[in-house]
């Protein structure tokens, strides 16, 4: 079974991110809330998803730019913690994620006597992503080949197939999980791969866990 070859190979894609600035900067949490209601969804995406593509090391360990800014620049660790626990993968789409962010900040501010703002830190700059997909030319047909390729490809490939697949393309599960299930007929492995999430420890950790899951399956069979 571990040598089963897929009829449709898995084509690895890479990507390059170009950052666009929206010219919006905010100095306090009320302004953050107001701009969050208005900015394009690509901006929400930039600050909550492609952050993993840019940062191997997450400042303060927070998994999105909003949480990092609140905790480190505004020094409002409570809001930073509340924003940090939001998991984009649990949201059906980016609009729902926007709603969650807005309502969370609104609720937070409702319980404060004054609006926290940056004093010594930097303002928040709204940006948006332009992701250009790049074919890598690499394709695989078996689990062993997938494992080998995963160990070697640029981390941007992991990003495209795990984060971009769900965050922007709106797929129900990441590309690796879908292919392992549909083409290799390994539903248990596919389910485990579908649960992989960069929010806690970044993309390299997702790669490590993916490799371990592949190794375990290859050894068992």
């Amino acid at each position, binding site marked *: 079974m571990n040598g089963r070859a897929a009829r449709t190979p898995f084509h690895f894609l890479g990507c*390059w991110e170009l950052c666009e600035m929206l010219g919006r900067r905010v100095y306090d949490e009320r302004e953050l809330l107001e701009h969050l209601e208005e900015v394009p969804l690509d901006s929400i995406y930039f600050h909550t998803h492609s952050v993993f593509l840019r940062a191997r090391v997450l400042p303060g360990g927070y998994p999105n730019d909003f949480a990092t800014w609140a905790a480190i620049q505004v020094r409002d660790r409570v809001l930073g913690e509340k924003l940090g626990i939001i998991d984009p993968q649990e949201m059906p789409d980016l609009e729902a994620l926007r709603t969650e962010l807005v309502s969370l900040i609104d609720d937070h501010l409702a319980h404060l006597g004054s609006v926290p703002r940056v004093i010594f830190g930097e303002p928040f700059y709204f940006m948006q992503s332009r992701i250009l997909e790049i074919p890598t030319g690499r394709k695989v047909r078996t689990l062993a080949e997938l494992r080998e390729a995963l160990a070697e490809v640029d981390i941007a490939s992991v990003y495209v197939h795990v984060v971009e697949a769900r965050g922007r393309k709106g797929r129900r599960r990441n590309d690796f999980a879908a292919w392992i299930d549909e083409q290799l007929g390994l539903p248990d492995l596919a389910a485990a791969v579908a649960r992989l999430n960069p929010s806690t420890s970044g993309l390299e950790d997702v790669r490590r866990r993916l490799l371990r899951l592949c190794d375990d399956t290859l050894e068992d069979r």
Partner: protein
Amino acid sequence: MTEAQPTLDDYRDVAPPGTIDSLRRLSERVRGRRLVNVSASREVGGVAEILRGLVPLLEEVGVESAWETLDQDGPTPGTAIAAPLHRALQGSEERLPVEVLDELRDFTRERATTMDVDGDVVMTHDALPTGLVEARPQEGVWVWRCHLDVSRPQRRAWTFLRQYVVKYDAAVFSLPAFAQRLPIPQFLIHPAIDPLSDKNRELAPADVDAILARLGVPRDKPILLQVGRFDRFKDPLGVIEAYRLVKRQCDCRLVLVGGAESDDPEGAELTADVLDAASRDRDLHVLDLPPTARLEVNALQRAATIVFQKSTREGFGLGVAEAMWKSKPVIGGFAGGITTQIVYGVTGFTVNSVEGAAFRARQLLADPALCARVGAAGREHVREHFLITRHVGDMLALMATLLG
């Protein structure tokens, strides 16, 4: 001696894995397209240094790359005219005479009649060539690339420049803080260092020793280093104060590499103060090196135990990336691009005061393992974000995006 121009494959060993292949694939989207860069000078300044590295690499991946300069027929008054405008754009309080703006307008109008700027993408760099857009042909996408810190420009200077900038199709800045209210898309591209250039390439320890001996800097104790012009924004006097606080507990040397701009009276005064301090301390070395002393700066950065970039105002501050690439812990001011390069406590430390700089320097000198850890993380951070290969990719992505 002229540096040999590296090819893209030469960067395979230093760029993140897979980067060179990604660049080649990305370039397929814009292969055969013509990019024209227009800058003030081919020889002088940071823009020239960036383009010297970028243009041949873009050409290598199939982008027809031209580089026009406003001084290609020999020295022009343009750079001198633009200097006060650049300073005003970067927030200097120096008065900007209206005659300067008139001269600039006339200068670019005259140049526009003689320059060949036909390309699929035309990118003008900084203030001097900005006005060329008035004579733009119908075809081609025009991009204004601003390398200056325009976060707090003098209003008159920015108003003058803005009348041209709005005629472009897009603008590119080095930091989000530099973005402006403009009706055109604004992209972020950080500058980058060339790891194979004389300023950054590997040096044998013996070469480092020889260069330091030639510069008269003994290696008998830890070296603290700052490289940067002597102006108040680079705060060399603050670095000296920090060094004195450090020296109370840890014996060390301070090396300040820099000098004043010839047309900056404030810088001359500051230089005199720095030299005065150095004259009373044998462990404080002031080196006024020419811009061509790239190997010397490389060797000093490699010999240093800690590198300062204690600016209070900074454009991007690529000296930070240069030092981090050499695995050195960097203590930087909380300013400009320094905060982008230094992830606090991971790849270095940003500080807000003389005391902060001294405290972190003492901490690092007392803990070689911390120095090594921060230095190693810094090098990897630069590998990911601040090498010329990333800059090439951003340029290709920008072209692909703008050309559709």
